């Protein structure tokens, strides 16, 4: 752990730097959208990282309910927090791209709405964790995570049907993609995966240390109370 973490950190930094160079310098400018298309090299990897972390949250929640392992709960918390951050990046970079290309900041398109609902569900997860008293938080939060995951296919189908009845902006998918673009994209995809894992790991360590500290403090105050008697 003590060696792996710095190695991963250095690797992530290198990949992010290389990915930035690839995305801004090497990859050619997209013909119709122009330079704003380069936001894709960050937008899509962030969405991927968010999805991955939400999935980790779901798995960790199930593991917690099954084994009652407090480490699994710490993983779930860390993954949800970092996932919400990446999801926020997706929701911010999306409109920045959409405004010049589609001419609108926001549309109730399938992917956009699904991301927004996912974000709402996980923000409510974090709010629940913040507001509940310590002993019961892990169980309740894990249950909510399962409910949220069950909800995703229903959200998907409802919006899919809702939107098919209305006109929607067309995503530019035609034509071939320059291999340099794909290269920049995949480098950033890997870099963001590493970044997500890295931050989540750091947050997990902080959470574990925080819990240890709380336990120690509680123990100390108990001993003190005993000593003063």
């Amino acid at each position, binding site marked *: 752990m003590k060696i792996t973490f710095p190695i991963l950190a250095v690797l992530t930094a290198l990949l992010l730097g290389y990915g930035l160079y690839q995305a801004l310098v090497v990859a050619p400018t997209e013909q119709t959208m122009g330079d704003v298309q380069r936001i894709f090299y960050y937008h899509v990897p962030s969405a991927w990282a968010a999805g991955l972390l939400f999935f980790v949250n779901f798995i960790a929640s199930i593991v917690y309910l099954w084994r009652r392992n407090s480490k699994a709960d710490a993983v779930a918390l860390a993954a949800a927090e970092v996932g919400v951050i990446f999801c926020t990046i997706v929701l911010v970079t999306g409109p920045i791209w959409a405004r010049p290309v589609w001419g609108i900041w926001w549309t109730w398109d399938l992917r956009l709405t699904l991301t927004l609902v996912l974000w709402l*569900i996980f923000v409510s997860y974090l*709010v629940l964790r913040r*507001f*509940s008293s310590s002993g019961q938080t892990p*169980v309740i939060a894990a249950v909510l995570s*399962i*409910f949220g995951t*069950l909800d995703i296919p229903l959200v998907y189908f*409802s919006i899919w049907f809702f939107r098919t009845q209305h006109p929607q902006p067309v995503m530019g998918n035609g034509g071939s993609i320059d291999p340099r673009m794909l290269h920049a994209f995949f480098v950033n995809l890997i870099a963001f995966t590493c970044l997500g894992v890295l931050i989540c790991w750091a947050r997990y360590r902080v959470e574990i240390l925080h819990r240890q500290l709380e336990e120690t403090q509680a123990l100390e105050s108990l001993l003190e109370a005993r000593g003063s008697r």
Partner: protein
Amino acid sequence: MSSTGITRATLVKDLQLEWRSKDAINSMLFFSLLVVVIFSFSFDPTAEESRRIAGGLVWVAFLFAAVVALNQTWARELRNQVLDAYRVSPAPANSLFLAKAIGNFIFVAVLEALMTPLFIVFYNLRAIGPAYQLLLVAVLGTWALVVNGTFFAAMSLRTRSREIMLPLLLFPISIPALLAMVEATRSILTGEFSAKFWIVLLVAYDVVFTMASLFLFELVLHAE
């Protein structure tokens, strides 16, 4: 006592309590009346427009009003440690949950039955599509709201400021159900397209979350 017996006993107790105090139903009724009046002022729709927006208005009003009933479902049991007594009793957790969910369903259904005529009067509503489907949508939609609402109300018992917590948990998860109810109602009122998909979606939502609630409620009740 069998588990259906426990469900029935709890349900009857809740209904009796509500019948004597009428706390939940009165506040729900007045609240949704206010929503009807305020929406009517702020949109001032024609008959054609109101057919298009009524689905949204009706269900948002019922959703907000339902939160009032849902919030006091479990809060009532906190006094005199009734819930703790329930936890140590051998009665199955699910029969308690079902009793509460059915109770809430009855409260919200009564509210809907009383408020729907008002909506029809205020918004000049007349269904162009098959109106009997509205009943189906109402039953499925109400169950979708109360089953998750009852469950999340039990979860938010364990939090600070639980009255605010319930809508924060309930609304994001209920988005597909709400969308289905609103769209189904609108398609029936306007008669422009079939409500079949939305009714199927509501059935799926009800089945999925009823199962999930029954499966996980014991964990939530005994979470310590």
